[in-house]
Structures are given as C-alpha cells and as structure tokens.
C-alpha cells in the first residue's frame, strides 16, 4: 500500500507535470538538450496544474462542496486538460519532439556535477532532517482535516472546533493540494507534507534556475553548470535569516508561502526575462509567454493570499522596466494586463473578510 502510494505520488509530482508541460516547452522552443526539455516541461506543467487547482478549489470552497467533490471536479478538469495537451504535443509538435529527443545532453562540467551533488544532498537531507514550524499546525492540519471530515475550512485546524473566520486562508487553498496528493496516494497527510513535498519543491526550484541558466548562457554548458553551482551554494547556505526564500524552501517547503517565495516568484522573473529577451531578439513575443504570466499569477494566488499581489507587483515592475528601456508600450501593457486576473482572489478576500 505504502509503495503504491509512493509511486502514485511520484507520478503526480514528476510525471504528470512533465506530460502537461511538454506542449508549452515545444511551443516556446529554446530547448538545447533533453534535460532542458525535461526541466522546462516539469516547471511549465506544474504551473498549469497549480493554476487549474486554484480557481476550481476556491469555487468548490465557496460553494460549500465536500473535499472529495472538489477533488473529483479538479481531477476531471485536469484529465481533460492533460489529454488535450498530450494530443497537442503529439499532433502539433510531434516533429519538434522527435527532433528534441535526438539532441545530445550537454556536458555540465565539474561545477555542474558539483551542483548536482549539492542537489542530491539537499534531497537526502529533506528526508533525514525535520524542521518544526508552528505554522504547520494550521496548514498541514487543515489538509488533514480536509481528508478526515471531507470538508474544507469548516473546522479550526488548531483545535478542531468550528471555524470562526475562514476567509483569511480559503482564497489560497495550498493545503488542499497536499490533501489532494494524500487522498490519491493513500499516504497520511503529515507524511506527504513533510516527506513527499520537500524534495519535489527543491527539484522545482532547481529546474527553474536551470532553465533560467539556459536563457542566460545559451549553449555554454560550462557557464550553466557554474551558475547552478553558485545557486546551489546560495540555497544551501541561505539560512542567514528566517525570512529568506532559501530558508522557506529548505525549512517549510510544505507551506504555500515557501512555494511562492522560492518557486513561483523566481519563475515569474524568468518569464519576464524570456519576454524581454524575445522582444529584444525578434521584436515580437510568443503569446504563450503571456498565457504563462496569467497562469503563474493563479499559481501564486494558490500559494498565499498575498501571492497574487506579489506576482502582479513583480510583473508590473518588469513591465515598467521594459517600458523605460525600450519605449514601446504594447508588450509591457499586455504583460501587465495578463498578470491582473489573479487579483480576483485577494479582492474577494478583502470584500468577504
């Protein structure tokens, strides 16, 4: 049972995002190796999954659905989107996929290997070391309660009493994502949150940084390896305060704000870089990048009520800098507009609280 559960979790955490993200990776191009394809698909896919999860679960919570009904609804939508994306991948991008799969993997160099070793250490340590954080008694307990009572935000996670004001948290239902993984895998919520989420979150962060290195250094694999080495050192030694994204990643990876700080926001920086880079090189931008901005905003809103606001703030900052640099209005405007829809969740919170 436990082994089946672990396999199911690995499939949802690794295989599913890769399948979801293949079409997006191939649509954007910029793939220099098989590892690039894998890393990009992994990240894009997870962003799509989070972006679907957020509106469906907020809707389900507001409609007072049972957790299982919300999960079934999400599962159905996810299945449809997955099938559509697979069909798109194997019909629209079949040639690109075949061509990409023939690419050779790059030589990461000694520093790239060192980065991989540090990544391995972090993953192993995520199993061996525990970080006791008081906030888990809300987030993880909310997930556990979701499964136990098949309800969402009806009980105060701290005590199990009836909840007085759920609004602070229900517009960012990241705990329900943990509950969803637990429900499908049959593994206890606490084990999923503390053992199955951390290594996956570390992989997401490394994947984001890896694809960013591809945009920064193109085919120079040694520079990419060196970049990843410094990134891994900075993450591993990021405990200079308890507020840094690195600290959140390694200490509190099962909390939505950790995903926001260390995964979603750096990915948004990468997206902004990609848009400006493509505009600089080709004077036009692939619309898929703007769709990703929109989806990343939704993913940010899933992680934290403030997440949507931070994603929009970051995009507006990028749009402003692009506008001042190029004196062209169109793409910064589109970028800003595409980031806005996720504000619906914090706005709903302010209206309903």
């Amino acid at each position, binding site marked *: 049972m436990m082994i089946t559960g672990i396999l199911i979790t690995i499939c949802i955490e690794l295989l599913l995002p890769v399948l979801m993200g293949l079409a997006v990776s191939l649509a954007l191009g910029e793939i220099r190796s098989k590892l690039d394809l894998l890393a990009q698909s992994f990240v894009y896919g997870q962003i799509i999954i989070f972006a679907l999860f957020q509106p469906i679960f907020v809707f389900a919570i507001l409609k007072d659905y049972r957790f299982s009904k919300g999960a079934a609804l999400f599962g159905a939508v996810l299945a449809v989107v997955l099938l559509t994306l697979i069909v798109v991948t194997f019909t629209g991008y079949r040639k690109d996929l075949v061509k990409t799969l023939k690419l050779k993997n790059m030589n990461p160099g000694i520093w790239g290997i060192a980065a991989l070793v540090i990544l391995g250490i972090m993953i192993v340590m995520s199993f061996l070391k525990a970080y006791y954080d008081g906030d888990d*008694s809300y987030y993880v307990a909310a997930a556990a309660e979701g499964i136990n009572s098949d309800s969402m935000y009806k009980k105060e996670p701290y*005590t199990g009493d009836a909840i007085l004001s759920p609004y602070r948290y229900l517009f960012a239902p990241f705990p329900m994502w943990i509950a969803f993984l637990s429900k499908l895998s049959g593994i206890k919520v606490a084990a999923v949150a503390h053992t199955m989420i951390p290594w996956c979150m570390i992989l997401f962060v490394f994947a984001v940084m890896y694809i960013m290195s591809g945009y920064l250094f193109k085919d120079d694999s040694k520079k990419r390896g060196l970049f990843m080495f410094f990134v891994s050192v900075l993450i591993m030694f*990021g405990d*200079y305060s308890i507020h840094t994204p690195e600290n959140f990643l390694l200490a509190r990876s099962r909390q939505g704000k950790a995903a926001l700080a260390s995964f979603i926001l750096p990915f948004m920086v990468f997206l902004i870089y990609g848009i400006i880079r493509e505009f600089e090189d080709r004077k036009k931008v692939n619309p898929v990048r703007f769709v990703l901005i929109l989806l990343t905003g939704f993913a940010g809103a899933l992680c934290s009520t403030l997440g949507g606001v931070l994603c929009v703030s970051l995009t507006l900052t990028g749009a402003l800098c692009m506008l001042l*640099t190029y004196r062209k209005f169109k793409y910064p405007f589109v970028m800003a507009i595409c980031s806005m829809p996720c504000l619906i969740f914090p706005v709903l919170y302010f209206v309903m609280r």
Partner: protein
Amino acid sequence: MLGTIMSVIKAYMGTGFVTVIFLLCLVYLVFTERDRVKRCVFIYMPLVVIIVFLCPLTYIFYGKVSEDVTYYRLLWLIPVTPVIAYAAVTYLSDIKEGAKKTAVTLALALFVAFAGKLMYTSVHMVKAENVYHMPQAVVDICDAIHVDGREVRAAMPEELMQFVRQYDPCICLAYGRQYLMAVYQEENDFRDAMIARDTYLIGTLGTVREVHYIIVRPGEEFEELPVNYEEYMRIDGFIIYKNTVVSTEV
C-alpha cells in the same frame, strides 16, 4: 516610519553579509553588463523593488491590506540568488580556464557560504524521528488515545500541541496554538486552570467541555488527580489522564 522599514530590512538581512554581496554584485553588473535585457531584469527591476520597498507609502498601504509583520515578503521580489550567481559567472568568465579559475571559483563559493549560514545547522533543524517529521512521542500518544469512528478531545503540553492535528485530525484540542500566539490574544479558562494546576477547575471544566484526555510532561504529574480524571497510561514519559465521566465510546 523609515526606522520601522529599516528594522524589517535588518531582520531580513540577518548578518547582512549576503546582502552586501548582492549589492556589490549589483554595482559590478551596473559597470560591466552591456546586455539591455540582463540590465533590465538583474539591475533595474531589483532597484525599482528596493525603492518601492523603502517608500513609506508602500509600508502604509501594505499595512492596510496585510499584516505589517509580513512586510519583508516584498523583498522576495528581488532575485537575490540569480543576481549573485549570474554576477559570479560573469566575473569568472573573464578568467582563463585552469587552476587559477578553479581556485577563484572555490574562493568565491566559500566566501558566499561563509557569508550565509548552512541551513542544516539551524537550531530548529532536528533529526527526523519518523516520516511525519514530528516527535515520536506525539505519534505514540495519538495512537494510544485515538478512537476509531469518533473524535476525542485532549489537552496537550505546549511543545506537542502543534503536531497533534497534523498527525491525527480526529483528536481535537482543548486549546491550540492560537492561545500561545500573542497576535490572537484569545483566552481559554481551561488552559488557565492547567497553568495554575487547579485540579478542581481542570476536572470540572474538562468534564463540561468533554476533554477526554489530559497529557502532561514527564515529571509534572498531578499530586492530586483532577476531579473525574484517572491516570490512564504513560507513554515516552508523558502521563495520560483519562476522564472517567465523559465516554469515549462510539
């Protein structure tokens, strides 16, 4: 106002060495980076965020829409790690391949490592006792008082409180973490009675509130049993008292 903002920055920076490195990298890139896109994302964007963050109006607005204590989260918009890593690679790319480059790379990495702090040396980071990453005593106690098919209520020592409902949501708490956090300022007379060790009040309130179990730390057992409670068992040194009036039957 600016003093408050500076104190937020100070708390975020910790020792401040990594922040100094980041600022040095920013200055280095200002003078060396010629690519407009990289300047835009790695120089202008962080600068805009820093300016906005330091603006008192932002702090006032943030305080209106969220809690002041989380103001530091705006600093997450600065891509500190990519900027430092990128600046380091740019600096090193000017050095020819060979022993010198390896030595400088190692020196830079060590410098960055010593400027920061290894995550695994944190006092909060402990050896995992199980897959749930919580003290084994919590798991043992929860398993002992769990009743299939119904919820039970327990009063837990403060150090175990945060784990109980993560592991087993069928166990409700007589008082939870919110009573420990000054931000909530909630009161709970049962907890007050526990702190005062008023066995009469504990027993009376515990029975009225249907607190099936009271768990106390090793060495803190009640000299006089609370009214309506009896010693049920001892697990990992913790003493479990069970209410004799309120039933735990399904």
